């Protein structure tokens, strides 16, 4: 076959790939419409006030792993201890921090050491001490040797008393009624194995006493574009998956799980790079294999706020790690791929994540390379190639703006008109430079996996405002 023939065929294959992928995104987009409509209606139901007065709500343990979180730990834990929920406890795990996280906790909450009375159901790194607070009866603090986030979550699960556990990052700010809202699917009588809430970007928001009091869109491009990315991922990606019944991601920063199911699969895997994705895939595998009826929905109205990277360097590390985690999970659980035993998860979610998410950067870069070769060899029509790029960018923009539409017609967290315009601006700019950089970072993940390195990126945080003493 001639060079021209090869290029044409490769381009055709790439075109078909993107057509298939984008059609699937379009499907998610369409499915997110009735879903957000239903969820908004349920979220507006005032019966929650009634529920708060009843003893129907299930007790919850919040699992809070903390590693070098000295800057934010006091504000975050204070906010977690004052949520509008009747029965819950907070288990903070200091994962051998190198900074003074444990001293901050000890001082802020008047901790005293207690013996460990519960068994080690899931094996973890050794505990140094267990603390309770003299001032906050709901707080339990574990101090342990460093073992990573998954290990800390397992230690917290061991110490938890309640049947539902929620994994929350120590730097995450949870809205006061978020727990209450997160339990809605349980109240609606569904067979819930796990439920995820929305994570939003806290950069540039006004934070008072560990609470976001004024939601703002960041002025800087990198965190600003991430606001749009988060909206897209949560408001139409996961809502669309709700209708397809195969959510593969419950955010590690804010997800509620049934403890007995987590215990049954041996807790979080300490060797996984992205522990939340790994846990959810294993839960699907276990529940399907046991023929247990279950749902893992995402509901949009419970909100947690998190600080996202502001510098390209840190963002690069984060994205590279996320993608490495995706590659690792897809490889680890390849047996589920196109396996009808796992229902929609095996036949739909896994293939989508493997071919649509994991391979997308490879295909995209390959497409660019072939196009450049084709153009320089005069085998491709320049106007066609430019038109194709324009359509691809336009489609990306359309998806991002659609996420802004969903936000506008449902929850409208950004009240100022200026913020709305900023969102639209970032949704438009995302495809010019930012997206290409993320493709590059994700591509680097393949190289890292190839070299078999598993290094966590470090996240530098500025910290939110401290609560008044």
């Amino acid at each position, binding site marked *: 076959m001639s060079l021209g023939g090869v290029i044409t065929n490769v381009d055709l294959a790439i075109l078909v790939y993107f057509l298939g992928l984008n059609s699937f995104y379009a499907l998610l987009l369409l499915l997110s419409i009735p879903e957000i409509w239903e969820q908004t209606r349920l979220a507006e139901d005032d019966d929650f006030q009634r529920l708060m007065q009843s003893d129907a709500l299930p007790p919850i343990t919040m699992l809070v792993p903390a590693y070098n979180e000295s800057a934010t730990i006091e504000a975050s834990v204070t906010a977690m201890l004052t949520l509008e929920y009747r029965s819950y406890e907070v288990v903070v795990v200091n994962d051998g921090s190198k900074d003074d996280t444990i001293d901050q906790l000890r001082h802020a909450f008047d901790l005293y050491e207690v013996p460990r*009375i519960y068994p080690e159901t899931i094996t973890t790194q050794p505990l140094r001490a267990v603390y309770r607070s003299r001032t906050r009866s709901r707080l339990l603090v574990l101090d342990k040797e460093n073992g990573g986030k998954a290990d800390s979550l397992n230690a917290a699960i061991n110490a938890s008393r309640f049947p539902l556990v929620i994994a929350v990052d120590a730097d995450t700010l949870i809205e006061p009624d978020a727990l209450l809202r997160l339990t809605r699917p349980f109240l609606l*009588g569904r067979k819930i194995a796990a439920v995820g809430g929305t994570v939003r970007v806290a950069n540039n928001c006004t934070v008072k006493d560990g609470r976001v009091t004024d939601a703002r869109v960041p002025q800087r491009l990198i965190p600003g574009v991430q606001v749009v990315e988060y909206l897209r991922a949560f408001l139409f990606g996961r809502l669309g998956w709700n209708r397809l019944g195969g959510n593969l991601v419950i955010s590690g920063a804010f997800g509620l799980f049934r403890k007995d199911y987590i215990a049954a699969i041996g807790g979080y895997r300490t060797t996984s790079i992205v522990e939340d994705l790994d846990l959810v895939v294993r839960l699907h595998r276990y529940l399907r294999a046991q023929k247990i009826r279950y749902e893992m929905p995402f509901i949009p109205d419970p909100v947690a706020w998190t600080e996202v990277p502001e510098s390209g360097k840190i963002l690069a590390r984060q994205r590279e790690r996320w993608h490495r985690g995706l590659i690792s999970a897809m490889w680890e659980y390849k047996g589920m791929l196109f396996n009808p035993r796992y229902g929609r998860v095996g036949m739909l979610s896994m293939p989508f994540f493997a071919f649509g998410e994991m391979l997308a950067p490879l295909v995209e870069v390959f497409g660019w390379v072939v196009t450049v070769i084709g153009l320089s060899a005069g085998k491709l029509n320049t106007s066609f190639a430019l038109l194709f790029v324009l359509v691809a960018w336009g489609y990306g923009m359309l998806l991002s703006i659609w996420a802004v539409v969903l936000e506008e017609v449902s929850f409208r967290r950004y009240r100022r008109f200026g913020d709305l315009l900023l969102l*639209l601006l970032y949704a438009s700019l995302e495809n010019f430079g930012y997206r290409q950089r993320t493709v590059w970072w994700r591509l680097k993940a393949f190289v890292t996996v190839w070299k078999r390195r598993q290094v966590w990126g470090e996240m530098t945080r500025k910290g939110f405002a401290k609560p008044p003493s």
Partner: protein
Amino acid sequence: MTSSQFLFVVAIVQGVLLAALIILIILNRWFRLRRSARLNPRRVAVDDAMRRWAAGATPLAGVLVGLSRLPVPLAIDALVGWSARVPGERWRELASTLEHQWWARLVRANSSSARWWKRLECARFLSVGAMPGDVARLVRLVNDPHAAVHVAAVASLERMESTPLTLAALERLPQLAPTVQAYYASMLRRSRPVVIQHLLKRLRRMDDPALPRFAEFAVRLAEPALRERMTALADHTDPEVRIQAARALGSFPHRESVTALTRLAADTAWAVRAQAARSLGMIADATTLPLVRGMVRDPAWWVRLRAGLALMRFGAAGRNALLETEVGADPDARDVAKLILGLPAQALAEFAA
């Protein structure tokens, strides 16, 4: 059509869609601002009218006019919000007058709508505005397949005494998920006489698969009339039923309860033993102190914790027993004693709940 022409058409369609979406976003914001500017004064007017009427300062007519000027969902929100603040007799007067309002008639007609959100609207309205004539509607809504609808409908039991409605809710109770059961139970508690009569019958059916759920409900009621039945259930073969029996008996300080709990304290299932320890602590019969003290050395940590907490309820004798355990030979029991003796009063109460 060539592929370039096709892409050109796609690009144009995308451009139009993008422009349409941006216009939609801006129009939506503008429309919402206008809407809230229009509706907020009406909402405030309803609140004012309701406040004055609740205080007996003005007649009901002002409230009715205000409600009719609001969109139906907002009117229902206002009613649900005010229902808890207005005394029962006055509220019944409002509910009875609302029966003849055109918009309330429309809402009632939605009880058999094919759309779940319409039925939800109806259920929410009836949860605060139901009249005796609505019982059939409410029974239908309590049996609705959509959870949000039947959860809203069952709230009507807070204000209405109706045997068919109570029985419909009670019969639905065992089929529901635990959280929803707990919510139903909190609503059914208000219709105590009917519920207890029916429950006594259901608790006699020893092979009923719904028995654990009814027993769990009986625990929530803590009704002395159920003591005898719950004591009998302490010997049931299903551990789930024994757990509920052990939990219930703590509310009945009676000789027979103590005997049954002593038996349950040696049960093979740790969850039953844990509940028995808790209930023995609630009754705090001095003769059971050695038994509870021994349970602090149970192989299951939950039982040890429950027994330790129970000892704190035995007063000075229990505390002394814990102090002795704290320096005793059993390391697990020592740890439990040390933990409990160090707990502040609030933590102790939360642990014991």
